């Protein structure tokens, strides 16, 4: 198996941090939503999660940078980044269109299924979920292109 480059290690670390911190947050919210319990201080929880991710990223990325020589991005890195951001954008826009359809179409045609979770207090959480899914898509795509080639 080919050696794992510093960039891949950095991406893997970001992926693990994102999945662990945001995964835990979304699971807690899901449990509360399914139990029909009120979600208190959702704004504070969101800020705490985002700050936790930023702090963890700074610590882990600094550690990785201190263990290996810094490398500037070249044309391959930039190409992989562009292609990954395109996939992330695609993911985000598909999510946004599904959301728009879910929240608007039932007002025109009441037979269509309507989810109460797509409106109200959970809106910022769902927006964050879409951004996190897009971010994970970008990271996974970058890892895929670094491994498989482009």
């Amino acid at each position, binding site marked *: 198996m*080919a050696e794992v*480059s510093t*960039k891949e290690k950095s991406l893997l670390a970001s992926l693990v941090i994102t999945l662990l911190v945001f995964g835990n947050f979304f699971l807690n919210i899901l449990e509360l939503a399914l139990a029909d319990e009120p979600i208190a201080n959702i704004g504070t929880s969101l800020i705490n999660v985002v700050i936790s991710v930023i702090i963890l990223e700074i610590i882990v990325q600094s550690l990785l940078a201190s263990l290996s020589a810094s*490398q*500037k991005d*070249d*044309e*391959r*890195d930039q190409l992989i980044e562009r292609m990954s951001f395109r996939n992330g954008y695609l993911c985000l826009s598909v999510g946004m269109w599904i959301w728009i359809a879910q929240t608007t179409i039932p007002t025109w045609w009441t037979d269509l299924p309507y989810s109460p979770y797509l409106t109200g207090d959970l809106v910022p959480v769902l927006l964050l979920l879409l951004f996190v899914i897009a971010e994970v898509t970008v990271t996974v795509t970058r890892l895929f292109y*670094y491994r*498989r*080639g*482009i």
Partner: protein
Amino acid sequence: MASTSIKNNIRRLRFETNEMTQQALAEAVGVTRQTIIAIEHGKYSPSLEIAFRIAAAFHVAMDDVFIHEETERPLKR
């Protein structure tokens, strides 16, 4: 429809050039070592500019570094 595949002699040329390391070639060309590895293994086709720089690093023509192979592929229906 013709599909193209680009092969290269970078590995051989490195050994013929005083066993040049991938890192040394990367520094001469201005890319990362990972990019040289990817090019050598055929996992990345570099831009024309990088291709010319690689050829210049070995003091050879581009044709001596990169080989363009054309294969026939049936049209998809």
